[in-house]
């Protein structure tokens, strides 16, 4: 895992945004993403698709988790760990950037 993209480096205040390098399209039940070289695809369904959709607007990890928690009727603490891992994985592939 890259030094700048590791899940452990993402704090509640880390701002997460799409890099714009990956293309994505809405599949109805989620999204499908294509790498800049058009050689790698990632399918996102359920909450993964929702996280990607929410990141159309850059947000901090805390804001993202609060938005998800509201939609899925759980507490932000319950989702933070999974969300952090998920965004770290997309950042590792160059689809998300942190500031």
């Amino acid at each position, binding site marked *: 895992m890259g030094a700048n993209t590791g899940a452990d480096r993402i704090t509640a205040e880390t701002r997460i945004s799409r890099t714009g390098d990956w293309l*994505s*399209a809405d*599949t*109805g039940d989620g999204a*499908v993403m294509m790498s800049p070289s058009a050689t790698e695809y990632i399918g996102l*369904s359920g909450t993964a698709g929702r996280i990607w959709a929410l990141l159309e607007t850059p947000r901090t990890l805390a804001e993202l988790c609060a938005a998800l928690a509201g939609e899925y009727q759980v507490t932000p603490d319950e989702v933070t760990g999974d969300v952090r891992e998920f965004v770290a994985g997309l950042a590792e592939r160059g689809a998300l950037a942190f500031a």
Partner: protein
Amino acid sequence: MRYYRIGGLLVESSLALQGAIPAPPGQPDVVVRLAETPRELPNATIAGPNWVATGDTFLLKVPNVARYLIVGGREISIEVEPGVELADAQIYLLGTAFGMLQHQRGRMVLHASAVALGDKAALFCGPSGAGKSTLAAALNRRGYPCVSDDVCGIDFSSGAPVVLPDGRMLKLWSDTVSHLEMGERQGPAIRQRLDKYYIEPESVAVDRALSVAAVYLLRVADPERKPGVSRLGNADAAVLLRRNAYRPSVINKIGLEAAYLGWSSGLQRHAGVFSLTRPFDLAAMPEVIGWLEDHWRTLDLLPAAA
């Protein structure tokens, strides 16, 4: 001049197009001519092994057969090499050349056959030899009108995917023909050296565009792939649809990958993308058709079984 309906387009042609369905004369969408055709495009920016392209012009060069110049989604000029039968030259016209023409018109083009389910369509994708035409012919005998064979142009201009009726005759290998007892409807051999025949479909839905309801990727069952129908995941659907584009090697070079991503997600949103895994055996066809009809009932495309 002769007129045909190909990919929903009215085609005016100076040569007879064997296998295409004749149409009444009218203002053509596409004009096909035998004419002098360049050997190269001077400003070509992209090229493959047997084609070059620039802007809205695509030059297909089939060695020892013909050259095809496809311009603006409206014109195809063909120059046939000396001594080549027109019937041979038109194989690439109805296949690759019309596939590229439909791309120029902003359509998704799949290597697929399609049948009508009322006012909707089911598509079957797969590479050559995957059994698309055979399945379409068997469904046709079961009463489902044939919408297109081999090349399927899909229009998204109104948002939802619509398949343009093609009416091209089914291309089947002769052993399939005899098994399906369609022998009495055999047309001339497609090519002298290929034992494949055009078959006039029993009923052809040529007169209207149909909403795409389901797209199936044909697979052969093996110990790791269980037979049946299953919905493909988002990434698998995108990858497999792009792989079944007409032609994948060309669309990658002419920069249509992003368009295919959008189109494949549109098919997932408005229709559904599934795998159809079945034994590669004609004897299993009735069973396979049974799976499809069960699936169509679950999608409300057919009335529920009594």
